[in-house]
């Protein structure tokens, strides 16, 4: 989506301010107060920047929030300021006086104009994630407000890509139903999957090949979460007998869906819900497609499948069975197109590949698909006692296990080795357990005929040669290894194909040719998906295609762009970094109880028994919430104002401005780069910013300085961590740390009565107004300043020691400490180079944005019309930042006002 915002106030020109820390806020307020339009762009969900994280400010010990909040509150109140949070600059064109700026606004998922900040949403949110604002010292929910005084006060959802959802062909919100199951909310979990447009929850929970589990991040710690089994219990434990009401029809258009398999029914279900009249045609006498015809009952009880099909139909889908299209006397595609405004072809891949060997047409030689269909439709299957199943796919396994259950002795013959078998490994091993014999590297040469009946099969041994086009090694017959298997029944399961003839739609190798994003075929208004497009695949892929088709058809019928905002590019799961809220405790996954093998033979009872509710909750709690937001939509239900916008998407915003103020701030040095201090290793070693949060009344400890509930008694501060350090290529002084330490030492003295407080320094740079006086005051409180830059922190037993030379004694010393605060310096923002490229700014050798002249043109950047404010130009404290921000505002206003303007009167 793209928005345009009116670009000036009173026709007096506009400015863009990038970054809404104290510098950006001040610059924006000055420019807006003078009557110019200001776009204040902030990439995080709240303005306030670093200052909002501080407890007190030096040297006056003002409460940082208390002095900042009024300024923050002035921003939304100012009619000249348009505040754009969660927004970043994408591109800038033009020159001073006429910049055209493209902004990208990331979704907040909460409508700022509607949210009252009441917090009901956060109460129901099941997801806990580290609170970055509090330096990860505590946690908050996935829907949260950055801090209590945040501006805008609206909540925001932390929604990130999760490997499971990305990997799922149907993009089912896995983390959502898992989070709900973790809380025992099975019904809500089922609802959540169904809301996502997936009607076959119990079905998928049983038969899905769950590629999601292969990508699950939990496997980095122990084992993947048992996602499929959890989906099953969402259905098993969450279902009730209530059927949905038919959805009222909103639109005139009538949609035909050919094929009542998972793809077709999913499309029908979703279009019906959107208000379309949908008719589903199927050649078979009962619906379900391959679900019904292909999957044996011991894997998918018919009762489950029928219940889910009923769920679809109950919403108002019309079903016409025994109606093949384009063949066998059924209506043609043209007929359908005449009566319907859109058609979805989801006819599956019900044709079978032939073995291509002599004797194939004997009556005891079956094709797997018809064999399974025959059995699954409730007919008796007439097979012998010794069955050979040819093939290595899922159909082969299904056929083998069915034959076994009919009392036969079953051998499975596959021409490659086990590793190449396309069937799911767990299916193969289940078959093996049940007694199916597997013969690898063997291929049939002919069916031996006796009296018009099959009496055996002659096979030949194979070996693996060069890889073929599929990447698998091609099997090559080994001469002279022919042998005969004594079987009376042969089931061929070597491939399925699409029966696509006669429809007049472009095909390739029998499969419909479609646009992979929109599923449009060569015929206008005709879409196709599922096995009919990609060949025999999985249920979940079919459902994914169904969802895709429903979206396309809706857009098509509504005259909307079929492609806008849709993409098949998703982040790669390996690129997703996650940070669990707390240390992950090793817990292996719950195992699916199964029917004992002895009880499986000779019947079609379901083999997998399902997790118990307790097991399921425990299993669900293993989820690491990679996505943070689980998309469980509990907040949507809880919000009384309808402020939650789950489908919120990135937006592009274009603005025209005359001047740009860059106030993007700084990053805090990561002390892990100085491993000798053990930051990240010793929990007692923290940064000064973490100390601020510990000391803050609104912080995680409500202002009590404590570690694991214990107030420290020996606190040591270390100056210049990541500053004045050429070994890190950070030669510059960070300017604020000396005073920050003095202030924090004072706070420690104040809050930890009797504690021994030591500060290690090289030079104490108390240069600003009132700073030296504050430093004097702090020392007099009894805080020991020792000159020397500590070399390392070591642990002996449970105790940490700061090792340094006290250069005034000229002696090495060790100071035992139970809290060590590293005055981590300021560094340029990690994304400074990126922004520099977008804005064409020059960076100095220190990485900060370079001013035009270090003395006289302190706020002009290297680009005319762009001005610098605050720490993006170099470290500075709050008053210097505010002064520079106002200076940048002055420069911007001069430009906006036009140099020739003359306001003088009389």
């Amino acid at each position, binding site marked *: 989506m793209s928005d345009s915002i009116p670009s000036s106030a009173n026709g007096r020109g506009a400015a863009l301010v990038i970054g809404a820390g104290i510098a950006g806020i001040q610059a924006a307020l000055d420019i807006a107060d003078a009557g110019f339009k200001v776009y204040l762009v902030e990439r995080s969900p709240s303005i306030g920047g670093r200052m909002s994280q501080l407890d007190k400010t030096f040297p006056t010990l003002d409460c940082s929030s208390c002095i900042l909040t009024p300024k923050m509150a002035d921003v939304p109140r100012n009619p000249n300021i348009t505040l754009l949070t969660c927004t970043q600059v994408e591109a800038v064109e033009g020159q001073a006086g006429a910049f055209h700026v493209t902004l990208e606004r990331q979704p907040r998922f909460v409508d700022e104009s509607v949210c009252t900040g009441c917090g009901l949403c956060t109460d129901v949110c099941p997801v806990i994630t580290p609170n970055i604002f509090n330096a990860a010292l505590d946690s908050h929910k996935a829907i949260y407000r950055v801090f209590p005084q945040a501006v805008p006060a609206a909540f925001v959802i932390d929604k990130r890509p999760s490997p499971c959802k990305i990997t799922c062909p149907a993009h089912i919100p896995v983390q959502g139903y898992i989070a709900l199951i973790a809380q025992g909310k099975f019904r809500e979990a089922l609802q959540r999957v169904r809301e996502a447009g997936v009607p076959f929850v119990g079905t998928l929970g049983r038969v899905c090949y769950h590629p999601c589990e292969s990508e699950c991040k939990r496997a980095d710690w122990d084992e993947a979460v048992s996602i499929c089994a959890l989906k099953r219990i969402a259905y098993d434990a969450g279902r009730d007998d209530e059927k949905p009401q038919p959805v009222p029809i909103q639109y005139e258009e009538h949609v035909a869906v050919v094929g009542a398999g998972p793809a077709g029914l999913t499309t029908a279900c979703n279009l019906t819900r959107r208000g379309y009249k949908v008719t589903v045609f199927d050649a078979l006498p009962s619906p379900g497609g391959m679900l019904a015809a292909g999957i044996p009952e011991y894997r998918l009880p018919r009762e489950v499948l029928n219940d889910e099909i009923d769920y679809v139909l109950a919403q108002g889908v019309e079903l016409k069975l025994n109606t093949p299209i384009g063949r066998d006397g059924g209506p043609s595609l043209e007929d359908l197109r005449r009566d319907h405004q859109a058609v979805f072809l989801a006819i599956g891949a019900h044709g079978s590949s032939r073995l291509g060997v002599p004797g194939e047409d004997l009556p005891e030689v079956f094709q797997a698909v018809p064999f399974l269909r025959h059995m699954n439709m409730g007919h008796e299957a007439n097979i012998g006692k010794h069955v050979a199943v040819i093939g290595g796919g899922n159909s082969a396994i299904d056929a083998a296990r069915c034959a076994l259950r009919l009392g036969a002795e079953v051998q499975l013959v596959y021409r490659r080795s086990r590793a190449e078998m396309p069937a799911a490994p767990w299916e193969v091993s289940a078959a093996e357990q049940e007694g199916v014999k597997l013969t690898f590297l063997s291929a049939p040469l002919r069916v031996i005929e006796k009296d018009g009946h099959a009496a055996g099969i002659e096979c030949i041994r194979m070996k693996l040669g060069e890889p073929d086009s599929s990447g698998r090694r091609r099997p090559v017959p080994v001469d002279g290894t022919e042998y005969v298997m004594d079987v009376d029944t042969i089931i061929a399961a070597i491939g399925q194909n699409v029966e696509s003839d006669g429809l007049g739609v472009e095909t390739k190798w029998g499969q419909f040719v479609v646009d992979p994003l929109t599923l449009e075929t060569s015929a206008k208004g005709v879409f196709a998906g599922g096995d009919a497009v990609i060949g025999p695949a999985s249920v979940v892929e079919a459902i994914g295609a169904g969802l895709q088709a429903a979206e396309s058809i809706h857009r098509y019928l509504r005259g909307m762009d079929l492609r806008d905002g849709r993409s098949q590019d998703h982040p790669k799961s390996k690129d997703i970094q996650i940070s669990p809220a707390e240390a992950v405790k090793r817990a292996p996954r719950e195992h699916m109880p199964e029917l004992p093998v002895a009880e499986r033979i000779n019947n079609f009872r379901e083999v997998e028994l399902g997790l118990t509710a307790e097991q399921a909750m425990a299993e669900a709690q293993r989820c690491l919430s990679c996505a943070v937001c689980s998309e469980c939509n509990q907040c949507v239900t809880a919000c009384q104002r309808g402020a939650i916008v789950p489908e919120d998407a990135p937006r592009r915003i274009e603005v025209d401005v005359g001047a740009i103020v860059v106030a993007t701030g700084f990053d805090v040095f990561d002390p892990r780069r100085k491993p000798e201090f053990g930051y990240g290793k010793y929990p007692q070693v923290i940064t000064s910013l973490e100390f601020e949060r510990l000391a803050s009344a609104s912080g995680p400890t409500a202002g009590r300085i404590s570690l694991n509930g214990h107030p420290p008694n020996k606190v040591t501060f270390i100056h210049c961590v990541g500053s004045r350090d050429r070994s890190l290529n950070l030669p510059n002084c960070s300017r604020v740390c000396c005073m920050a330490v003095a202030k924090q030492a004072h706070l420690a003295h104040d809050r930890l009565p009797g504690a*021994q407080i030591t500060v290690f320094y090289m030079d*104490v740079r108390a240069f600003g107004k009132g700073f030296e006086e504050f430093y*004097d005051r702090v020392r007099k*409180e009894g805080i020991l300043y*020792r*000159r020397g830059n500590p070399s390392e922190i070591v642990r002996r037993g449970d105790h940490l020691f700061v090792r340094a030379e006290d250069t*005034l*004694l000229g002696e090495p010393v060790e100071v035992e400490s139970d809290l060590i605060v590293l005055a981590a310096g300021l560094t340029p923002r990690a994304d400074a180079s990126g922004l520099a490229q977008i804005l064409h700014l020059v960076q100095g050798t220190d990485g900060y944005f370079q001013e035009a002249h270090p003395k006289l043109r302190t706020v002009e950047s290297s680009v005319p019309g762009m001005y610098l404010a605050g720490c993006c130009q170099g470290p500075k404290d709050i008053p210097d930042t505010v002064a520079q921000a106002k200076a940048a505002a002055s420069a911007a206003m001069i430009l906006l006002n036009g140099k020739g303007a003359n306001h003088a009167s009389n």
Partner: protein
Amino acid sequence: MLQIESRQFAVERGLFACIQCGKCTGGCPMAMKTRLNPRDLIYRVLVSGNGFNLEGREELWDCTTCLTCYSRCPKQVNPMEAILAMRGAIVEKGKIHPNVKTALESTFRNGNPLKMPRSDRAEWAKELQLKAFPDGGAEYLFYIGCTPSYDPRGQKVARALVRVLGSAGLDFGILGNDENCCASEVRRLGEAGLFEAMVEENTAAFTELGVEKMFTVSPHCFNVFKNDYQKLEVGAKFSAQVQHYTQVLADLTRDGRLKFNGSFEQKVTYHDPCYLGRHNGIFDEPRAILQGIPGLELIEMDRSREKSLCCEGGGGRMFLEGTNPGTRLAQQRVQEALDSGATILATACPFCLLTLEEAVKHLNAEEKLRVLDIAEIAERAL
């Protein structure tokens, strides 16, 4: 163990205010030649955690209490007072140098540290027929002090001063043998208990006598009465207005009551006693007296006023050696006076007088330089 509770010690005395700039040690006249390093001493107290060991810290006795350290300190830390407190801790444990012990015992017993009998205190004045205070109804109490009372060289100063004051018609009386030691050196030597007892005794006596205005010969007596008595609870009632005699003479000169009819045709350089100058900011009055004397040419040494070099007579240094067996600062000072071209080295303190005169002898410079007290010069110009 001879330990002080260093944290409490440091917090109470504001030692944490120290920024380790080293101004104290840089200016300390003893730091160059002894182990004394006030900056280092303070720092070691600060970093010593809970206990600071005084054992073997002989350099504490090197301090002359000249106060250069405090007067230079940018953060108003007073190393001298910290040193005195440490001396106090040592004395409290009874670890006292025999010489010091003798002086203290004598002060307790005889009212002077010089082991002289009380009954001889007024001997110096027996020819002078001075008024007894208060019975004679005098306006001022003239407090003589121990050295001018007993030391023959000091007695000369006292007598000269009496004559100068007499010529100006100042109405004063003395306490005679009832005069007790001011206890200044007791305090410098760290004997806090005895000091307190004597302050109590003297305060009671002065209160009873109704002393309202008094002056002293020695800047040390002047200082302790003026600055230290009232800081103690037992001395809170001490209410007399205390002056050094140079202030009195300067006032008399300015008012025209003291007239110099004679002359003193000499090149005079003036040595600022620590307890007059740095301790009490009295730099101008002694110079005003000297400049009022006809014929006298006042020459300034490089180190004058705030920079005056201590003679090493203060802080109990009259009684002990510390870690400094070498030459005294007074010799350096005399050399500076010689370099200035002066023929007379003037001062206004009995300790300075004695140490400087001894140094002149040591340098065999009696021919070139004489040491005189301002009172003596004034007397000669009457």
